[in-house]
């Protein structure tokens, strides 16, 4: 076992697992082509998981190990150094057999990603909580109700 397989005191995953995680995150949400939205590998998904759902870290580590093991079996290499097309094929193959593989990670990834300042700003939103500023919503055109009023009473007397 090398250093990269040791879990540090400040990290719940090994260095190898973190490398694998980074490329897996990029597979789930890559950067947008226009460059306005970052890759999920650039937001702190691991920090989010540690804070919000630490009980899932162990299963995540096992799934990342499986990616490396499959990559080794097929290509004689860890998952991270593979060409993008090979990584994609490998994950697609596993998910074809096991649709829930990395499913929890995908949900955690988008939960973290779509709370990130850069992402919200790219969506045209201010990076802030709803309260206290709130939002403006147009009252709307109530004259649209005229046809409804013209129908008269709709309920049954009882």
């Amino acid at each position, binding site marked *: 076992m090398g250093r990269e397989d040791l879990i540090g005191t400040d990290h719940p995953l090994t260095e190898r697992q973190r490398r694998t995680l980074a490329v897996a995150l990029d597979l789930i949400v890559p950067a947008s082509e226009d460059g306005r939205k970052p890759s999920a590998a650039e937001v702190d998904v691991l920090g989010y998981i540690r804070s919000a759902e630490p009980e899932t870290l162990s299963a995540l580590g096992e799934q990342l190990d499986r990616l490396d093991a499959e990559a080794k079996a097929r290509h004689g290499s860890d998952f991270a150094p593979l060409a993008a097309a090979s990584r994609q094929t490998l994950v697609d193959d596993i998910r074809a057999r096991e649709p829930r593989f990395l499913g929890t990670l995908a949900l955690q990834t988008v939960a973290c990603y779509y709370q990130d300042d850069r992402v919200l700003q790219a969506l045209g939103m201010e990076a802030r909580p709803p309260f206290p500023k709130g*939002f403006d919503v147009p009252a*709307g055109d109530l004259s649209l109700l005229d046809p409804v009023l013209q129908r008269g009473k709709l309920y049954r007397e009882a």
Partner: protein
Amino acid sequence: MAEDVVDVLIVGAGASGAAAAWSLAETRMRVVCLEQGGWMDPARYPSTGRDWEMRQAREFQTSPNLRRRAADYPVKDADSPIAILNFNAVGGSTILYSAHFPRFHPSDFRVRSLDAVADDWPIDYAVLEPFFAANDRNVGVAGLAGDPAIPAHQPPLPPVPLGRMGETMGRGFNKLGWHWWPSDSAIATRSYNGRGQCLNLGPCNAGCAQGAKSSADITYWPMAQRAGVELRTHCRVREITVGERDMATGVVYFDADGVERHQRAEVVVLACNGVGTPRLLLNAASARFPDGLANRSGLVGRNLMLHPWGHVAGVFDEPLESHFGPQGCCILSQEFYETEPQRDFVRGYNMQITRGGAPVATARAGIAGGAIPWGAGHHEAFERIYDRTIHLGICCEDLPEERNRVTLDAELTDSHGIPAPKIDYVLSENSRRMLDHGLEKGAEAMRAAGAREVHPTPSPIRMAGWHLLGTARMGTDPERSVVNEWGRSHDVRNLFIVDGSVFVTSGGVNPTTTIQAVALYIADSMKKNLANLFD
């Protein structure tokens, strides 16, 4: 020292208990309320933080089985296609409700006479109308007078904003010639009774940090407490005690320190909702009441009605800013609310237009359902859905059936060792047909409004069992009902029930305003009958 005896002891500080407490305070009797939860702190509601979407999804789970706050009790609902949802705190489930506040229709109280199904209520819309109006004033209801689908009334506050999505759906309904109207909403659209005006934060269903949503902790409770009602929090009632002449003598409860206490009372009022109330009555079985307290009819826990819920999502081409504004309040359509003989079901349903998902909710639903892929195409798919989605909920009237019921689970208990409720519920054929009709019509409405994609969700939606009704029904016949026409137990003459348990039928709309109107009516009846309350 003589044991402390209060005049009225209310169990439960949610929508109905709060309304009844406020009304009864006028008598100057000593009124005490026991609530198993505590006060919520609006400053800590999710919308105050950047991580609000995930805090809502975790800490404000709608199912007590998943949420597991200290105040929650478990509910065995695996045998029901609809899960039981609630919230346990001062304000009860109004802490999380969407504040969609339509009233029952007059026909809802006369289903036997009009449609030859179920039973008529012993009271009617006209009896409740003044209490609906009082409730509108007390909680601050926003709406637009003139809705032709409901008897005339004047909400005290202007309606919630339609936004572009409300206008879009309104035009769609107009194209079909269908009814629609801005929903009555328990939301302060202007400053009201010291509460701030709605800021369109969005997640009303995770608690309103602004205090604009009319949850019972900030509407009735401040008024009730100012009038002298004592509210004891973190007090979980184990059983109702009964003495001579089959009269309730009080309740046994665990206080905030877990100490078991007995509170004596001249009158006991249950306000624990359609699951909590039968649970308490069934847990109070004794030699005199072997099948549970106040259950000589055998109907305590039976006739559970849950409003089977359907859902249709429409995705539009143009941005609609659809996730801004009060999540559950926009417009409704009651085109299919009343019975029509040519349909293959009786009674009907309400269509509730709700706002779209915020970014995290949109992405998680898209990833889970396959509409948003991993990798290439992720961003394009997200942007095709986000801010362009409108939701339509279908609230079906659920008719009472004795097989649908609340009992006690043989093994499951809450943290105090009190047996937990167990739910047995089967969707009726009438509800199945109504749901199918609603899904078809909901999709038709979305297409008429211009939706590019229409996605009906397999229904009934499991996580939609908010409306807990019918398990201690009211009526004049002690053989066929649990309480009389003003909420008093037929069997225990100083025991009253004021929550949705007493509903004879369920209507086809979110029930909170009707629950509160019934609670105010029962409290008013108690006041009018004070001289001979137990006769």
